[in-house]
């Protein structure tokens, strides 16, 4: 097994453990924003799509890459906007009282 590959597997394993520990601590109050935020972060797949769309290696790759950038970008933009909108709404008692 190549050294690169084993490095990637280490990265995956450690990221999995970190993800588990970090996400376990997220308050159940925020499970909906959690899902929309991780969704926006997951759209980091856009980096692969950008390279495909710009490399001009084949028409198929350019077309698929371009559509993939559209899909991922809409997740990034929409995901961050809605997550922030939701989080803005969460207030404690003393903060607002009419």
């Amino acid at each position, binding site marked *: 097994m190549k050294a690169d590959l084993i*490095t*990637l597997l280490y990265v*995956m394993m450690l*990221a999995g453990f*970190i*993800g588990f520990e*970090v*996400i376990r601590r*997220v*308050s*159940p*109050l*925020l*499970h*909906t924003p*959690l*899902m*929309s*935020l*991780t*969704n*926006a*972060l*997951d*759209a*980091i797949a856009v*980096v*692969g*799509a*950008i*390279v495909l*769309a*710009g*490399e*001009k290696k*084949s028409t198929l*790759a*350019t077309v*698929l890459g*371009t*559509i*993939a*950038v*559209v899909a*991922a970008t*809409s*997740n990034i*933009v*929409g995901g*961050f*906007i*809605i997550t*922030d*909108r*939701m*989080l803005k*709404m*969460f*207030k404690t*008692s003393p903060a607002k009282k009419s």
Partner: protein
Amino acid sequence: MINLPGSEHIIELVYLVATALFVLSLRWLSSPATARRGVLAGEIGMALAVGGTLLHHGIVDYKWIAVALVLGTIIGIPLGKVAMTAVPQRTALSHAFGAACVTMVGTAEFYLRAPNIPKFMMSVLSMEVILGGLTFTGSLMAAGKLQELLPQRPITYKGQNLVNLSVLAVPVALAVMLVLHPAHKGLFPFMVFIPLVFGVLMIVPIGGADMPTVISLLNSYAGLSAMAMGFVLDSKLLIVAGALDGSSGFILSVIMSKAMNRSFTNVLFGAFGQVQATVAGETEAKIVRPATPEEAASILSAANKVLIVPGYGMAVAQAQHKVRELFDSLTKKGVDVKFGIHAVAGRMPGHMNVLLAEADIPYDKLLDMEQANSELPQADVALIIGANDVTNPAARTDTGSPIFGMPILDVDKARTVMVIKRSMAAGFAGIDNPLYYLDKTLMLFGDAKTFVGNIVRELTGGGHG
């Protein structure tokens, strides 16, 4: 085109910073006080990663990238501004978009690289497109059901699980063949197409009440497919982001399944509809005690402690703002009002919390099931608005009930129980609820929004002004 010496290293360092920001982003989401900082960290990380990628030496043409970024932004903005009640379907839709991106990148990478694809690479690439494909159509189906474009009832038929599993087995077998013989390019389109069919078949038997689990599971698949893509592209950033998303979806699925006392396989392979036939007969004879808004108002205003249990019915009736008015007028009278929220209330994890936060209810009044159950025995009134199965005491006592063993909110321990419900028709899961026939239970028949509004009018002094 930019081609600085050493730009490769700069990009790698930028990705490293972005990765750290992503982890911090989720770390800060642990409490509402720091959560918005988390979004900011995520945004900065994303901007850095995209900016860094644009410096990539392989990029020779920016035209389509620019078009796609603009188009994606134009589509993304309205998707970020949907009403809070539409958040479950929006989330499902964004899982579909994420999965579509991953599947298309995987497909393009295959045709660029074939037939010289090492075995490990082909395995992760197959995982990427199979998971991506089934998540794409599965999420579209889920979004369609949530938006009520598709029938919400589970559709089941005999031998369904066998059919579904066989359909899934085909692309897996194709993947194995491609790993062994990557030159057989002709197999690849089938390996992409069949999971798309499986995604549809997988969601057909899923009912609305199972949506929180299914959305979480699809979330997890989307993350795993992105992680597989990270291996294909040799991108540690992508592996980390995919692993974070995957573990988030996984943890949420576990929480949701536990809250329903069911296993993943049970949610995916055992639609609720099949087990309910036994309960129908004896319901007619039992007596319920209906009450008017006036009676409800007078009991509520005499209480010291009220616990409100919201469910999907509150979301459907758009009653959350009326509920806030009720909360305000009772709080003004010195009543201690809190909310008990079951993990699977609504159509996605945390759905009720978001709706109540939108209506300006302070989040320290929102209790999870354990907290609520420790307060319920002291509560004078438990007021149930549009929730059913999560309050059904049969889950504790009736071994024959399909929901037996499911952790519930013990509303029957409150001194008085009030249930706002449109009629005596059985709930979504079609299971009768013995709670409604208790001596301490008052049934408040009507639309949740109107009924709560009427209670508020009584509380604030008769006529409205």
